[in-house]
């Protein structure tokens, strides 16, 4: 069931039959002077309460554009959504009025970005920026909102929150700034949190702190977490299920253990095999040949075919559908059986 009327906010409380957030056959294009950039070409995924979905892909795979479409922060134009649905508790967000969308954005679906420094305003104190969420959306007084801001900074484990609430963003380290971003995003108790490469700009020891914090916050509040990343290690650590994106499509989705044990798409398999391994030291790494596709001129058929060791003639002509491997797994490869069985032709 989907809501067709505008301005109707998604229900609260029980979910009924609906997933918390479901993206269905989403297409996003950018109409530029150079031509139509097909950034997202039919993405389908969903996330439930307390669940962590990792969206794995390289730059240009469409993983961030999908997230921006969910948040409704794409610049339209040049972006156009010709097709698809984004259902939040059963309501298609794309059909909501801008006013109703604003009620959802930031309050019920929140997002954190890779670059926390540029996402924070340098001329306001962090306390002011966090408390703004409460003043604007909850109508709290300045004093009350500031108190809530300190509480939140404690919750994301910023030491000496009471003193530091009056500091400016540049006075914090990269890890601390990302904590402030997280504090702002969870301020209004969102049901879904989208984290777009939240630790890419951070060092490994700080990355471990942030990932631990996100996991804890998720356990406390049962948020659905969409983690967008290119890091196979981070995914293996925290994800419940994975959607692998390539050239704007989901090429494989599966529960986390299945994908690492037996990938069912040549791209996923190639990525996993290209990780340096101790037992293969001194040998060449497995390398996926060729280059990522040009989104202006996607290859015909399967977008991965020019780089694929399993390629057959029909891969050049036929777009592979997302084959169901089991109830929870799918692969967009004509030859997924061979890939799973590990016979490379």
């Amino acid at each position, binding site marked *: 069931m989907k809501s067709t009327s505008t301005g109707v906010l998604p229900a609260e409380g029980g979910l009924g039959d609906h997933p918390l957030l479901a993206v269905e056959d989403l297409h996003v294009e950018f109409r530029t002077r150079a031509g139509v950039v097909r950034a997202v070409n039919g993405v389908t995924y969903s996330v439930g309460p307390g669940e962590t979905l990792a969206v794995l892909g390289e730059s240009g795979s469409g993983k961030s554009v999908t997230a921006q479409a969910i948040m409704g922060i794409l610049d339209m134009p040049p972006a156009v959504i010709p097709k698809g649905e984004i259902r939040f508790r059963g309501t298609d967000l794309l059909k909501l009025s801008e006013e109703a969308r604003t009620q959802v954005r930031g309050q019920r679906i929140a997002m954190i970005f890779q670059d926390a420094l540029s996402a924070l305003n340098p001329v306001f104190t962090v306390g002011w920026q966090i408390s703004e969420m409460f003043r604007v959306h909850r109508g709290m007084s300045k004093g009350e909102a500031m108190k809530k801001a300190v509480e939140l900074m404690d919750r994301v484990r910023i030491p000496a929150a009471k003193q530091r609430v009056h500091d400016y963003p540049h006075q914090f380290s990269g890890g601390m700034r990302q904590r402030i971003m997280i504090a702002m995003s969870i301020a209004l108790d969102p049901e879904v949190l989208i984290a777009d490469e939240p630790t890419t700009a951070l060092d490994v020891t700080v990355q471990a702190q942030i990932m631990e914090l996100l996991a804890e916050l998720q356990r406390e509040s049962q948020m659905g977490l969409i983690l967008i990343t290119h890091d196979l290690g981070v995914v293996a650590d925290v994800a419940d299920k994975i959607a692998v994106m390539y050239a704007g499509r989901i090429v494989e989705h599966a529960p986390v253990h299945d994908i690492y044990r037996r990938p069912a798409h040549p791209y996923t398999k190639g990525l996993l*095999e290209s990780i340096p391994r101790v037992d*293969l030291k001194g*040998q*060449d*790494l*497995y*390398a*996926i*040949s*060729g*280059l990522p596709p*040009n989104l202006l001129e996607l290859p015909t058929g399967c977008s991965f075919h*020019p*780089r*694929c*060791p*399993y*390629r*057959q003639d029909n891969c050049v002509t036929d777009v592979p559908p997302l084959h169901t491997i089991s109830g929870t797994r799918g692969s967009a490869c004509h030859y997924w059986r061979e890939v799973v069985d590990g016979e*490379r*032709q």
Partner: protein
Amino acid sequence: MSNPTPPVGPGLPEAPALVTDTVTAPAPPRHGKKAKSGKPASLWTDAWYDLRRRPMFILSVIIILVLLVMSFWPSLFTAIDPFNARTCDLATARQAPSAGHLFGRDNLGCDVYAKTIYGARNSIVIGVFTTLITTLVGGLLGIVAGYFSGAVDAVSSRLTEIFFAIPPILGALLIAATFRGRANSILLVIIALAVLGWPMTFRIMRAAVITAKNQDFVVAAKALGASAGRIMFRHLLPNSLAPVIVVATINLGVFIAAEAALSFLGVGVQSPDISWGLMISDARDRFLEAPLPLVFPAVFLSITVLAFIMMGDAVRDALDPKLR
């Protein structure tokens, strides 16, 4: 099952990735003929090749050529000699355009068309030479100050601040009035405007160089042992030229107009000599009664400035390989 690609995997001595990579380059070859011929290309030859194909560049060059011919051989365009007092007739002052006098007559009854043609030389010479001098001096000092920073930069930057503090017309008036009579009035105007104009170019070049010099390719050149001159002229100059070209072409118009202001104030080009600036200031008092003696030189001035701006734009784009 047959498979067109060989298996790739660990254990192979040479990754096939290397081979495939050479075949799939993202961009199509540029101008097909040249890419294959194996002749070495450089930024400047490629830019020239590209410019010759830009209609905007060709159009602007044609306009500029016509203007130059007009400056040096005005008699090709008009039979009337405006320096000959007999061609003027006070009785016909401010006469509307007619068959013999396409642009009409001015306050003194002289032919506006002939004066506009003959006025081109002084205006264009002043505009072009002042722009050349300010761009060369300001640009050169800007590169050096931006690259070396430290004392060189501190001294030259403070120096430009002094020049910036002088009101331009007042300063030019002072220079032109002081040396009046010791040099050709046109030369004086050029020098006066150039002295006050170069700090602007200096500032822009210096800022662009400071941005460019922090990029990794400059560090890479240093690591190769490149000399300061090579870094400044091979690496920094081509990457800092764009804003300077834009300002230079805009300034060209500003200088031609400034010459008019100086003429009006009594220095610079003086009657019976002719320039567009002088014509515009002469026609100003009676503009409401007779707008045409002001409009025609103003239109020529605009076309000149526009042509140079168009050419500057085309050159700037041609020097950016990403825009080709």
